[in-house]
């Protein structure tokens, strides 16, 4: 177990290096300049431009730039081209919102995915299974921004559900509980929208895993000794096919953070996704490098956690 974790951490160091290379070079090697005011403005003298390039190390060879970027990222010195504030500070203030959004979305995807998956496996081959799997493919096929807009059109007339931000402004909350409820209420619609695709994917995995487990020998043994089918299904089969629920955490993360760009933009939700979108619009290279790097490392950690958790939960797994 310990050796496994150490080995995984060593591999992760290699991966972090690769991730840093990819996130830096994809952004830097593409043509275009990161000036907020544009390269061609005649009113800006060459001296100002040169000074600017110097300040952000844009006049140096690319390997040095990479070195400055990465060193800056780890020492917290890397500053945004947009407003000169440290990149880590800008990301840090946005991180809690995105993390809570993603945690909710993961919780929704996993729980509903599990329910739907188990139910379709139970009714495998019957009409319930077919219609549920068609429904899941519909979830996958729907463009999330489109459904969100349709929901907004439909809901705004009927329900007082908040559509922007994370908190209600101008309200004095009687206590912390009310504040928390208000936050959750703001989180509800974005999280559900973000989770749609995850529910679909997760339920497919759970269903497949259930069906696979049901063909195992010990299930046949249980049937042979005359156990009630429900007991076999929920006690023996379900427990042994929960693997995709755990590995799901790892595989859902990158998709969720990517999808959050659109959802956060629609709901004016102050998270990392919208920060990234703004950084793209502003060509804020340091922020983009840092965002891509940090999210990828977060995903890496999520995967590592899922693997370790997987071994803790399932004693059959020997981590080598």
């Amino acid at each position, binding site marked *: 177990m310990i050796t496994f974790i150490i080995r995984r951490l060593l*591999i992760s160091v*290699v*991966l972090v290096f*690769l*991730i840093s290379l*990819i*996130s830096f070079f*994809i*952004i830097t090697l*593409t*043509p*275009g300049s990161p000036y907020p005011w544009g390269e061609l403005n005649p009113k800006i003298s060459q001296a100002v431009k040169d000074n600017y390039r110097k300040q952000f190390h844009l006049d140096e060879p690319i390997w040095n730039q990479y070195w400055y970027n990465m060193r800056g990222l780890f020492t917290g010195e890397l500053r945004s081209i947009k407003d000169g504030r440290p990149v880590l500070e800008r990301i840090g203030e946005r991180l809690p919102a995105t993390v809570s959004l993603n945690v909710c979305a993961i919780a929704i995807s996993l729980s509903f995915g599990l329910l739907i998956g188990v139910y379709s496996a139970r009714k495998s081959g019957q009409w319930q299974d*077919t219609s549920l*799997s*068609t429904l899941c*493919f*519909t979830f*996958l*096929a*729907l*463009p*999330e*921004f*489109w*459904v969100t*807009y*349709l929901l*907004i*059109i439909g809901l*705004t007339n009927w329900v007082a559900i908040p559509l922007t931000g994370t908190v209600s402004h101008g309200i004095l909350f009687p206590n912390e509980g009310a504040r928390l409820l208000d936050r959750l209420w703001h989180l509800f619609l974005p999280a559900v929208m973000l989770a749609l695709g995850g529910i679909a994917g997760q339920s497919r995995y759970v269903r497949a895993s259930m*069906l696979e487990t049901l*063909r195992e020998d010990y299930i046949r043994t249980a049937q042979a000794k005359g156990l009630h089918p429900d007991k076999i299904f929920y006690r023996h089969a379900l427990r042994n096919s929960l693997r995709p629920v755990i590995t799901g955490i790892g595989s859902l*993360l*990158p*998709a*969720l*953070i*990517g*999808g959050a*760009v*659109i959802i956060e*933009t629609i709901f004016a939700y102050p998270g990392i*996704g919208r920060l*990234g*979108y703004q950084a*793209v*619009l502003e*060509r804020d290279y340091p922020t*983009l490098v840092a*965002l*891509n790097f940090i*999210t*990828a*490392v977060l*995903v*890496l950690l999520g*995967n590592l956690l899922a693997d370790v958790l997987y071994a803790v939960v399932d004693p059959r797994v020997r981590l080598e």
Partner: protein
Amino acid sequence: MIRRFFRNRLGVAALLAICGLFAVAVTFAILSYLKVPFPQDPNLTNLERKLLPPNPVNWLGTDNLGRDVFSRILHGSYISLTVGFVAVAVSLMIGVVVGAISGYAGRWVDNILMRVVDAIMCFPSFFLILTAVALLGPSLWNIVVVIGLVSWTGTARLVRAEFLTLRETEYVRAARTLGQRAPAIIFGHILPNAMAPIFVTAVLGIPAAILTEAGLSFLGFGVQPPQATWGNIIADGKTYLLDAWWLILFPGLAITFSTLSFYLAGDALRQAAETRIERK
């Protein structure tokens, strides 16, 4: 496999829908190339007839510049299909080559290639694509290539797994004993036997690429106006969200219809390909 596919009614319906989409897309690609205004010119503005709800002249209404939404949806159809197919072709080419080399060579080659795949998989792909497309400049070919370059990792892993098992089979060993070179074995013997799962992932990759393009269009980094695409009709319409529902509803239905057809067809194919499970 083909016979088993045709027994699945949902799959056949989805396949027919895809054929229909193809016919529409090819027709309107030719029509817009020839600049034939059928049913109406998709880019003709008419401010006297702006934001009209569906009516006998404009079946699906008009947008804020008085352009006919129905014509715009039809003339935008080939964009989505082109993105889907070309992006998947790009990702297949890279994925199959990397996966084949990795699975066949094994050892340190495999180790290095798979670590690269792992690293790319850690990135939230939509965000990476958005960044790259925004910096490169959004054009149809940039979008297609970037989507392809980011989404090959799944295919590579799948192909590698297939190769790991197939490389140990007897006919491969026989070919190796006969002194055949690695490329001949990879492309002549192993790859043909791994085609079924590759084909399935390819079909399932198409709707994902279409959705990515729609999302990019929505954020303003898709194929640029005045070219109509399903995504940017919705993006333009979002300003009139509560006044002009037809600008949102119909292009979204077009996207959902096509992606759902591909997903259902792909799933039917997957079921048909999984002989082992069926037989058990």
